[in-house]
């Protein structure tokens, strides 16, 4: 039985998108801080574009990891991973659109009452700012539009190419069988992991760390990466729950769900560990140019910043600790939804304070735009899932996965 998007699901997706759009527009038109509106809207577009792109990249990474580590159990959920990673195409388009806007508007600044340029996303794109700033001038070898775009195009070329390759060979394997394609996937996955290992750090420097252009941290790339990996696992879990609820994926049993639950549990720890490592070292050393990043967040975003960390750390840790919870659909769905909100807030914390200073808020603009992007994401992923059988055929480890029991 092939998967089809039901009429009800289509209706829900469209409703969510329309409600989101209305909320967003109402938020924009009833907004009473016109001087910050532009920054707020553009940073929201950046947050949601990146958040959903990261989910697809996390899934693509995990898919490659399964090939490269010759993992058996995950074959039964392989098509779901392919579905989630298929969004990389749309993610690339939305992210590039935001970048294009920012490039043409020199970082998306607003002119305030005194004639100053404020509220940039990328301060370093505005030559007025760079002229008076020795630190930005020092970084201009890395932070300039040409390099930014060149690198961005390379990143997306790599991700799209490898996504298409994995998907193509996966479908081809269904028809042809044999082990030739499997070993090709193994080799390509290893190559992808190397490229991703480097670029996943550098793109976070280019795209996000450069928002706080004066600030720097060597751990930044790995920290952002752990968050994207986790959210990808969470989305995969939710999708599997949905598909199983519709009677699909009958070969995905409790043990598969348990394993995926363990990944979510472990990656929540990894993320918290990296958050703590970066934060603690800067807080402890207390050096001005470093700790300013955190001080600013303590002072202006206390509740969001700490709330985000505490929820993302403690909820998965406490709830998913037990074996039973990792096999219980209801508990898993609730925890997964909390993590999605928590990690969207993490991305919000990465971007908004750098763009809007102390004026960042979470309201119906944020909620509305998130809903619009989320419904687009869900539709695209479900649509990919309709295009191929949900259970791969002829994968050499298929039998291991079908008989998976822990």
């Amino acid at each position, binding site marked *: 039985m092939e998967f089809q998007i039901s009429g009800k699901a289509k209706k829900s997706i469209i409703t969510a998108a329309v409600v989101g759009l209305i909320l967003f527009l109402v938020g924009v038109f009833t907004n009473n801080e016109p001087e910050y509106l532009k920054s707020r809207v553009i940073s929201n577009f950046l947050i949601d574009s990146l958040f959903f792109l990261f989910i697809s990249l996390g899934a693509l990474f995990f898919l490659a990891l399964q090939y490269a580590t010759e993992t058996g159990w995950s074959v039964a959920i392989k098509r779901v991973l392919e579905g989630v990673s298929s969004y990389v195409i749309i993610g690339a388009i939305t992210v590039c659109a935001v970048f294009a806007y920012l490039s043409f508007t020199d970082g998306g600044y607003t002119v305030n009452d005194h004639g100053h340029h404020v509220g940039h996303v990328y301060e370093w794109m505005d030559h007025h700012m760079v002229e008076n700033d020795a630190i930005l001038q020092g970084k201009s070898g890395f932070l300039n539009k040409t390099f930014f775009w060149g690198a961005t195009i390379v990143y997306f070329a790599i991700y799209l190419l490898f996504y298409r390759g994995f998907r193509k060979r996966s479908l081809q394997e269904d028809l042809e069988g044999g082990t030739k394609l499997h070993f090709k996937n193994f080799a390509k996955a290893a190559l992808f992991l190397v490229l991703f290992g480097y670029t996943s750090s550098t793109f976070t420097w280019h795209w996000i760390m450069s928002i706080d252009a004066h600030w720097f941290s060597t751990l930044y790339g790995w920290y952002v990466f752990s968050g994207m990996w986790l959210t990808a696992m969470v989305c995969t879990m939710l999708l599997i729950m949905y598909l199983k609820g519709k009677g699909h994926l009958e070969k995905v049993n409790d043990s598969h769900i348990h394993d995926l639950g363990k990944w979510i549990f472990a990656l929540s720890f990894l993320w918290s560990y990296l958050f703590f490592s970066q934060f603690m070292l800067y807080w*402890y*050393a207390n050096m001005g140019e470093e700790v300013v990043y955190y001080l600013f967040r303590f002072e202006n975003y206390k509740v969001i910043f700490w709330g985000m960390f505490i929820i993302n750390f403690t909820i998965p840790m406490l709830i998913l600790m037990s074996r039973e919870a990792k096999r219980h659909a209801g508990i898993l769905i609730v925890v997964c939804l909390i993590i999605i909100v928590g990690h969207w807030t993490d991305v919000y914390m990465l971007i908004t304070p750098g763009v809007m200073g102390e004026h960042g808020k979470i309201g119906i603009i944020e909620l509305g735009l998130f809903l619009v992007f989320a419904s687009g994401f869900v539709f695209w992923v479900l649509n990919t899932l309709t295009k191929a059988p949900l259970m791969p055929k002829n994968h050499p480890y298929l039998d291991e996965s*079908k008989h998976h029991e822990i």
Partner: protein
Amino acid sequence: MHKESAIREPLILGHKTYHDITEDVCRSIEGKAPKAWYIMFGIALIVGLYGVGCILYLLGTGIGTWGLNKTVEWAWDITNFVWWVGIGHAGTLISAVLLLFRQKWRMAINRSAEAMTIFAVFMAGLFPLIHMGRLWVGYWVLPIPNQFGSLWVNFNSPLLWDVFAISTYLSVSLVFWYIGLLPDFATIRDRAKSPVAKRVYSVLSFGWSGRAKHWSRFEIVSLVLAGLATPLVFSVHSIVSFDFATSVIPGWHTTIFPPYFVAGAVFSGFAMVQTLLLVLRKGMKLEAYIHTKHVEYMNIVIMVTGSMVGVAYLTELFMSWYSGVEYEAYAFLNRATGPYWWAYTCMMTANVLSPQFMWFKKLRRSLLFTFFISIIVNIGMWFERFVIIVTSIHQDYLPSSWSMFYPTWVDIGIYIGTIGLFFVFYLLYARYFPVLAISEVKTILKSSGESYKNGSAEIHTSHSKIVHTEMEEVAVEEEIVEDKSEKINSLISKIGAGSMDNKDDLKLISGVGPVLEKTLNSIGIYSFEQVSKMTKSEYDLLDSITGSFPGRAERDDWAAQAKELMNKTK
């Protein structure tokens, strides 16, 4: 039932039985040690004793016997400490993290890797102790009340966190290792002939009886300890990295240190495991259990962790420029081009470039090349710590106090001595302890043993009585199957072949239900026409094929019914 794909390589080569595994592991414990063991043990003991002598000299004379000076206040001592802690990382990673990842290949190496971990942590712990200078007040590092003479310890200091982290790690690793040893000690106890050995191993095995209850508890404890040990693997080296990263010294203070130290520790730990096991498997004739595939897996771990370390080096290098902090930039410039450029080059070549050879399948499956690279990595990781520690401080903010570090004979003696002591422990372990986890290796024999994977195990064991009857049963079953297909052929030849396309509803024949219809279809009977041609002999044939409801078809006279139905449908 677990399945293992045919394309996975076997983990136990050749044909081994459960008994063979016990024999192979116990041989070295029960037999005499070879001459080579005595030679190696003698050398290790002499080197170790020399190290102990150097330590006593240091304690008697003072820290001034080291080559430290007022600029370079930390050098070989802390380098050796971090090097040994790093080596002590792989064991618990193999036993805990790989257990959670269900990597079966770990079973051949976990015991020895854990032993290595414990001895390496012993060696590591030595350095902070002797570095205190006054070893007799070593208890001051513990949070005890002031009446004992100490000042209350500084909980803000990462050095104190180290004390807690490493002692916790050591305790858990030790318990984990020992729990795994219990059933194997019991095996040796049960086989021991001399009363002394029997007595010793029965004490060591804690009265293990092999009851189901013992096994059940054993498995629960292993899993719980694995769960506890996994965060510990991360915590230990993260906290070691805090010793440096919490400071404000350029080159030390950087956020990537915790995860990058963990990756580096796993990297160096696996290199040491390779060095030790490549010798051990040859010396103790365990080539069937620790073979090319295991070496290949470990080489891949080395390649991955080495590359992570490489990414971290490059990230640090980039950020030292990107940060715009001139001190930070200078620290790295000085590392790469200053007076210690050779140490930096050595580190980069050994840690970043040499693991990249493992991309080639030929090289990572070559035992000799692996041994060579493992030594290179061990050296490289020592240099990494030396580079981080010494080159970051030897040219500090004040050029008038810039200096170099030159080790004295005491520095060298203590370092070499710890290597000797480590091997003393390790050789004793290899002689008296089961170096393979006997009971664990047995659990994978049937799923990952070569002879079981390719089916030749049946030939090997056919003289064993139980298996023999089993084989006979299989043969009888096969006969039946063959017999059946012959009968079906003769039946179909008499009544004519049918097909799905002109299928009639056989359920209309009274006495044929949906189940029986399916059975008939599976034989190849689809239409009334076929049924109508059946006579007594065909009924008997059908009964002997299906084996159910004998005589029913005849009683209900299916052929007549089918003829009628045929006429009706026409």
